[in-house]
């Protein structure tokens, strides 16, 4: 085994272990903040796996989009809404667990089937394009994948407008949560009075 292949193998093992252990941590840890930071770690290691596959552009995009945008937003949301709140006990917890387990198992079997049926080996090792892949991705995005690309952008726009409408309640005449008419003068007024007049 040459040094390059050994290095690649060690990197692959470490990255896979980080992905698996990190993902388990995301699901199993009690603290939601730890889960969010671990999720960032998992995204980073997936980017590392892309790098091992010679897809440097995809790896950088993964870091930029998933770590730099998605994960930061998740952490932001957790830190802004850090409300200590006791969750209501769920009555039919057992049946829910059965349903979610069966859904997860179905998805797992689907993935296993894809793994078994797909032909993974490349027709020839010379087919890997390496640094050329940036150009190839751009060509595909603006030719045969143009419609999904544009639809995705419209989806993001819709999500953004929805978020703005939810966040800025003054654009509506009625408060969404309470149904009371909204005071249009103060944008930053909270929907409930801070000091209730008790006498």
């Amino acid at each position, binding site marked *: 085994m*040459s*040094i*390059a292949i050994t290095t690649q193998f060690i990197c692959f093992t470490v990255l896979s272990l980080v992905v698996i252990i990190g993902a388990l941590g995301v699901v199993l840890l009690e603290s939601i*903040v730890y889960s969010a*930071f671990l999720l*960032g770690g998992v995204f*980073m290691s997936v980017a590392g796996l892309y790098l091992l596959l010679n897809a*440097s*552009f995809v790896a*950088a*995009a993964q*870091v*930029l989009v998933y*770590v*730099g*945008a998605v*994960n*930061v937003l998740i*952490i*932001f949301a957790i*830190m*802004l809404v850090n409300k200590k709140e006791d969750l209501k006990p769920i009555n039919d917890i057992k049946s829910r667990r059965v349903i979610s387990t069966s859904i997860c198992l179905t998805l797992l079997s689907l993935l296993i089937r894809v793994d078994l049926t797909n032909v993974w080996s490349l027709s020839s090792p010379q087919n890997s394009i*390496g*640094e050329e892949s*940036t150009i190839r991705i751009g060509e595909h995005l603006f030719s045969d994948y143009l419609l999904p690309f544009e639809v995705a952008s419209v989806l993001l726009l819709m999500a953004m407008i929805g978020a703005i409408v939810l966040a800025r309640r003054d654009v509506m005449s009625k408060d969404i949560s309470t149904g009371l008419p909204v005071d249009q003068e103060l944008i930053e007024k909270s929907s409930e009075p801070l000091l209730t007049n008790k006498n």
Partner: protein
Amino acid sequence: MEYGLDLEYSFNEFLKGFGLSSEIAHIIWLPLPMLLVLVAAVVGVLVTVWLERKISAAAQQRIGPEYAGALGVLQPIADGLKLLVKEDIIPAKADGILFTAGPILVLVPVILSWLIVPFGQNLLISNVGIGIFLWIALSSIQPIGLLMSGYASNNKYSLLGGLRAAAQSISYEIPLALSVLAIVLMTNSLSTVDIVNQQSGAGILSWNIWRQPVGFIVFWICALAECERLPFDLPEAEEELVAGYQTEYAGMKFALFYLGSYINLILSALLVSILYLGGWGFPIPVELIAKFLNLPINAPSIQVFTASIGIVMTVLKAYLLVFIAILLRWTTPRVRIDQLLDLGWKFLLPISLANLLITAGLKLAFPQFFGG
């Protein structure tokens, strides 16, 4: 490789002369440029700290550090030693793991970004194909470190400071990336070496600053905001606010933030000089001078000479920009947080979008000037 020094090749050939295999030679070679760049970055920080002290003193009609070495040049080393031997305090109710990981996550991406800074045709650690995009991706990791250290301090001022720093960093990343995109559009490549080579045609006249004046200004403003320099140093705001996410930090962990912000400043200055000021290019093309003096451009001695001129030019341009940043810090007032976000989202973002659109249009209309 058309021309230029290739130290890696010569080094590997030299080691092979001792009977080592090419793989071993490569492994011995690998850490050398990394160490060199790391040392260069740290020395750059020391120089910048000294400059900051001296220039701020001059701006305020003081003398500044004077006793530590000639003209106080050893003062930054004294500062560093002080931070190094200070007690490393983790507040009692802080989250120890995250508290330690935060500063590391802020510093490491900045240092990794030095991977793509070229000081000459072959004088960089790695000419990766995604080049400048790697820097944009890496700099987007930093907000996580800021949020982490703000949260782990278990202090409401730190948490709010971390959120503000992350918000600032996120909102200025977008115009930054868009102005880089305009350059990439003109170059047809993401590689930093290609970006510099594309500007090397006619010396100072072919630098990107003449073709991208708006992009240059937007990039520089955003780079200052990303480095948390005045007028955008709201996360720290030493005279006005509690020191943001750094409040609870002391000793070496604080020094990591400090080091990170200065390395980031030098990195940003280097990248501005690479993207807009012709990188290692001399204002008059070196090839022209060599032709004028009837010197062979490929002779080894001339090669060494041009390579040293390249390094000197890159560092000179970068430090000119660092000087401007320091002067800005000591002469401009600080913006408020709402002004900061307004400037980012309502002014710089539309302007950089328009700049990108106009660049694309000009590229189609005048392909010989704006890259075909």
